[in-house]
């Protein structure tokens, strides 16, 4: 049992901290958290800084631009980044399609796509879910039919985050319906500028535009844009799911939010006394903090197991369930702290005129956060997975 950092690891941590304090500026933070227009430019600016440092895609193979970090170094980086309040990279290109491309793509695909992802020249989005399919990914119906050197794609994908910004979409499409549902699925890379693609905005309860429906109407996709073999797409896609679950847990991010919440608790007042003296709030805070302290070590256990070459394993479901429950508990406290102001929508007014610093933000965070227990395989599906594969039920 040893979780102390070595001298080298401590030096690395200092390096990360120095980088963050220099590069993660208030200006960037404001713009990234701002409205939709500002967001993309600011996010790219931030990701370019990471790339300049060689830290944009640390998990990639070194020959493609990866950093060859140990599990511990990766943990240190993610922790420091989160505690500094800096956002994760937009994962669809860097963390989701890239591993599929360098893992299963052709040499030509690697050369064509990976450098543009690394330079933030291409933005990607993910075409997995379909209307009516939800967590049951394999039920997908979007069809691709071979026509010469092209596939003709028809169907629709839904809940597609950032489709409105994206240059490319990676899609699971059905090329054969005769066998098991997991068979006959093909993994395609599709240019979003292809004729026949329509992006429809989905308005969501947080009043923020991140979700979309992407409709394919006789869209031609060159066979050259297919990953690996036809009908074998499920194999390539599946590898990503465990990773997604682990990253949705967002342990370090929750630590920062809990720290911020504690500060607010000391500032908000009821009957002339700070709410930090309120025993009910203290208990709610510590209920969550204690779960999070444990989950931090659950994550470390998963990382240690990965470092031992055993892989993240099925415990990633536990991380996802508990991690998202903690996120939502924090968002709920954030709301409750705002009291009457938790319903406020700024509109043309702002925090100053309305009279409360964070009610508007609390509401947005809360509403956006409802998705966490639903996407990436709903928490109910995670429990089914755990029951079956971990408990043998």
């Amino acid at each position: 049992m040893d979780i102390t950092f070595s001298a080298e690891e401590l030096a690395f941590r200092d390096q990360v901290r120095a980088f963050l304090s220099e590069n993660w500026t208030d200006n960037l933070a404001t713009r990234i958290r701002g409205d939709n227009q500002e967001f993309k430019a600011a996010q790219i600016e931030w990701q370019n800084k990471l790339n300049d440092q060689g830290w944009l895609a640390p998990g990639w193979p070194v020959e493609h631009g990866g950093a060859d970090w140990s599990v511990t170094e990766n943990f240190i980086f993610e922790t420091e980044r989160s505690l500094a309040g800096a956002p994760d990279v937009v994962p669809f290109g860097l963390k989701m399609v890239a591993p599929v491309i360098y893992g299963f793509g052709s040499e030509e695909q690697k050369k064509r796509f990976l450098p543009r992802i690394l330079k933030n020249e291409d933005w990607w989005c993910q075409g997995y879910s379909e209307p009516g399919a939800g967590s049951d990914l394999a039920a997908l119906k979007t069809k691709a039919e071979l026509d010469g050197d092209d596939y003709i794609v028809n169907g629709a994908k839904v809940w597609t985050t950032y489709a409105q910004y994206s240059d490319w979409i990676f899609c699971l499409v059905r090329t054969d319906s005769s066998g098991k549902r997991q068979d006959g699925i093909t993994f395609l890379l599709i240019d979003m500028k292809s004729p026949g693609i329509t992006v429809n905005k989905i308005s969501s309860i947080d009043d923020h535009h991140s979700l979309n429906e992407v409709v394919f109407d006789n869209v031609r996709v060159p066979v050259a844009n297919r990953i690996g073999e036809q009908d074998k797409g499920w194999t390539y896609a599946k590898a990503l799911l465990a990773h997604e679950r682990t990253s949705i847990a967002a342990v370090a991010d929750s630590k920062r939010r809990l720290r911020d919440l504690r500060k607010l608790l000391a500032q908000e007042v009821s009957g002339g006394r700070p709410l930090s003296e309120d025993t009910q709030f203290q208990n709610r805070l510590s209920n969550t903090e204690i779960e999070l302290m444990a989950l931090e070590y659950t994550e470390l256990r998963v990382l240690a197991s990965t470092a031992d070459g055993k892989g993240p394993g099925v415990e990633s479901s536990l991380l996802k369930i508990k991690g998202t429950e903690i996120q939502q508990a924090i968002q709920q406290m954030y709301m409750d702290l705002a009291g009457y102001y938790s319903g406020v929508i700024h509109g043309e007014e702002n925090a100053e005129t309305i009279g409360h610093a964070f009610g508007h933000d609390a509401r947005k965070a809360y509403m956006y956060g409802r998705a966490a227990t639903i996407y990436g395989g709903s928490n109910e599906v995670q429990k089914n997975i755990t029951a079956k594969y971990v408990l043998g039920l």
Partner: protein
Amino acid sequence: MNFNLSEEQNMLKYSVTRFVQDQYDFESRRANAASELGFNPKNWQTFADLGWLSIPFDEAHGGFGGGATDVMAVMEEMGKGLVVEPFIATVLMFGGLLNKSGNAALQEANIEKIIDGSLQGGFAYLERQSRFELADVKTQAKRDGNEFVLNGEKTVVSNGAAANKVVVSARTSGEQCDEAGITLFLIDTDAPGVERTTYRLMDGQVVANIKLTDVRVAADHVLGDVDQGYPLIEAIVSDVIIALGAEALGIMQKLTTTTIEYTKTRQQFGVAISSFQALQHRMVDMFMAGEQAKSMLYRAVCAAESGAEDLAKNIAALKVMIGRNGKLIGDEAIQLHGGMGLTDELDVGHYVKRLMMINTTFGDADFQQKKFNKLSYSD
């Protein structure tokens, strides 16, 4: 012992049900909420025509003379329809305060207009710092001859954009959080020195912050006695919590029904998700939470109607229960709707948002539980 409504109450309830069915489909509701005032003045006139605006007022003032049961019957149906028109702000809060104020001249001058739909009102009891403490009042009212001069700011005033008049709580004596020394004033929102900033809440309401700068109010525009406004506030809050409880109940029932229906049609892994036992048990939990809230509402209504000694305890318990059970039901409704529950297009999120705002009104579940504890365990 019975829990039946009278024939008259059933008719009243049914008239709201029919209005919601005929004139309040979800798209109309969306348009009403999105309009400038946050509601549809035409509907308001319909409410007047149907007699709803007269419910709590004495027959002497042209009212229906209704009690807690009548309010419950109406509000449960309004909850199901997610009605945004300011029935609570104008009729129950503003009108209710007038009704209880004992100020005959003000009643004479205003209640009739509330009933005919020509007067919109509100109750300005919050301030930036006050959180849920109704006695935390910094707004000052200084006597000057036959007038009072008001200075301060009230915030998040329900119906603040439309209100022609509001009742304002202000401090005439005592320290910032004292219950004694609070006085209620009736002011015109277009009086000199009144400045409104309006904004929206997530449940569709348009509210206002109201800045008061040397606003002069005649001494005969005091509701109740000088320095004695707090008991009046408490009494009206008790009435309104019953109304909010009934509205919340309507919403909870609607969310539960909607969720059950959705799971029956929604297919995953080749079957309707309503067939998954884990989800079934959670829907049973939703159902039980709603039934318990209904029982608590009935209990509070019976206590109010009979003037029971432990009314305050029942009111606090009701507010705790609609807060907690409302959260359980709202969370599950969104979760069991999956991605669809996150869309603005579906009504589920809107019902949940209203439930959340009901929870914060007059103190959330945690706050009200503290109140309950104080009433129960401080002997």
